[in-house]
């Protein structure tokens, strides 16, 4: 599944948050979108998943323009987002949250056990916590749940908004390993990250977003060695 964004403009009232962005995510890739706070990364993902309306531009999902399609239908197409700040249903148990991820699957009854097993395999902690309320999970566990829930819909393209936010270093490694593992099963991933170091190591290609514009596009490994990117997003000591 190829995701292509063409000349996208998005407004919040009069403020233009996305000012003509074009990006491509090819089938099977991990593409990362890095940028400072307020650059418009979350806005990009919300617009792709349909939570924000576009002002102009196209969102092509496998060639079809979905920019006018309501969010819930995009979910049916195989576009799945783990939102920023996790967006766990706090009043539902872990299991119920995971079940929600399958809400609209036609074959949800047949798939349920198998997919739960897959998610529990990736995140054994979720299995232990299956009957605990989502709101009482730790931050890291909520992040696992958000990703696990997004996987329950068997997505073709997965949108991840800062999956490493607020996690301990060991957990960050773990989450990125899992993202790589998910990608290896054939899921195309668009990854928004503040942790540019990790994101660039894992991704195939990368875009740098600055106040609503793409200022750089390159192979992820090239950006890792780009002096300007290193200075702005990786800090001086990073390797």
């Amino acid at each position: 599944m190829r995701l292509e964004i063409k000349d996208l403009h998005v407004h919040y009232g009069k403020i233009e948050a996305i000012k003509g962005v074009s990006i491509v995510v090819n089938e099977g890739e991990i593409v990362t979108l890095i940028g400072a706070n307020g650059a418009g990364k979350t806005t990009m993902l919300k617009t792709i998943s349909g939570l924000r309306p576009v002002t102009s531009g196209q969102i092509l999902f496998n060639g079809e323009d979905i920019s006018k399609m309501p969010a819930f239908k995009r979910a049916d197409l195989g576009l799945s987002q783990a939102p920023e700040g996790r967006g766990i249903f706090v009043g539902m148990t872990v299991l119920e949250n995971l079940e929600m991820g399958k809400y609209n699957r036609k074959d949800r009854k047949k798939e349920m056990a198998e997919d739960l097993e897959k998610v529990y395999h990736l995140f054994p902690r979720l299995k232990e916590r299956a009957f605990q309320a989502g709101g009482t999970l730790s931050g890291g566990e909520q992040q696992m749940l958000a990703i696990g829930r997004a996987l329950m819909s068997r997505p073709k393209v997965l949108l991840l908004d800062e999956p490493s936010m607020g996690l301990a270093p060991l957990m960050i490694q773990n989450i990125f390993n899992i993202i790589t593992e998910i990608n290896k099963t054939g899921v195309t991933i668009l990854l928004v990250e503040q942790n540019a170091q990790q994101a660039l190591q894992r991704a195939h290609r990368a875009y740098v977003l600055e106040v609503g514009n793409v200022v750089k596009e390159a192979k992820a490994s090239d950006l890792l060695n780009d002096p300007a990117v290193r200075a702005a997003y990786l800090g001086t000591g990073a390797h």
Partner: protein
Amino acid sequence: MANLKSSLNLRDKGAEYWERSPKWRRVALAIFFIAICYALPFLNNPLVNTPGSDFQSVLFYPVGMYVLMAIGLNIVVGKSGLLDLGYVAFFAIGAYTMAILGTKTSLNFWEILPIGVGLAMLSGVLLGTPTLRLRGDYLAIVTLGFGEIVRIFAVNTDAIGGSRGIAGIPTPPDVFNAKFTILDPKPYYWMLLTFTLLIIWMVRRMAARRPGRAWDAIRQDDDVAQLMGINTRKYKVWAFVLGAAVAGVGGVVYASQILSIVPDQFNLNISILILACVVFGGIGNVWGVILGAVLLAFTPERIRFLSQPRILVFGIALVVMMNLRPDGILPKKKREHFDPDWHTVEESGEGEIK
């Protein structure tokens, strides 16, 4: 204080007892409870009777009617989290349908009932479709306006009696031996109770299935619900429409009992009071909502002998209670940890809203 709190924690104890009960005990309890409800008009206990007003009438209105309406509003406010301050409008539409068709045509109560419910639902769709994209406060204001507009429209429309309303509304035809007359409120109470039980049953079925899951998700996070593939607009409109239908039933039944209606009966106070029943009893939990409605409808009648100060006493009691139990008397269960044995995943396509 801690002691008081835990002894007031009927919700969890009740739920636990229920969940742990075998099927036969649940059936027996339900039959017992329902039988008591039907027998209530014959109860001559000085503790629950209402000096100053006819107990059997009080059972029908306000108690029964408030319970029915609170259950309906709970679908909207409690289940899907939409604040509707104009709920009385749907009650009025049901009542006016009964009044107009009952006096101007030869249709009887049973023929008018589906029409009244249908019109209430239709107005729910018409109001809900454009307004349900609004969030929180805005929705509250718009619905509040709608409630007032319906009333003011009735006041200003001479064809439906204007501010004098409509008199001479026919009573329902007899059912078996039950005769519906102005003199005997019992058959009306039993009819209302029967409708209420049916509606509870339907709402509970729905809440345990896909619509209930969708409402749950929408209430907690509308955006994330959409990401899960839920058509949130559709489910919100449906919650609104189902709530309207319940109020429509109430309106038709009410008008057929009271024989004459005037627009000012359908004022903002009713909307607020029904909402108070829902909040006071425990938003989202149908048993709490029923208890809230019973208490809020019954208490002012029970203390009628206090005449003027009774509303003040009632108000103070409400404030004190809400401080003791901010989530209501029987709040919706707070989910923290679940015993896996209790968890029954009712993943069924049944009851799905198309």
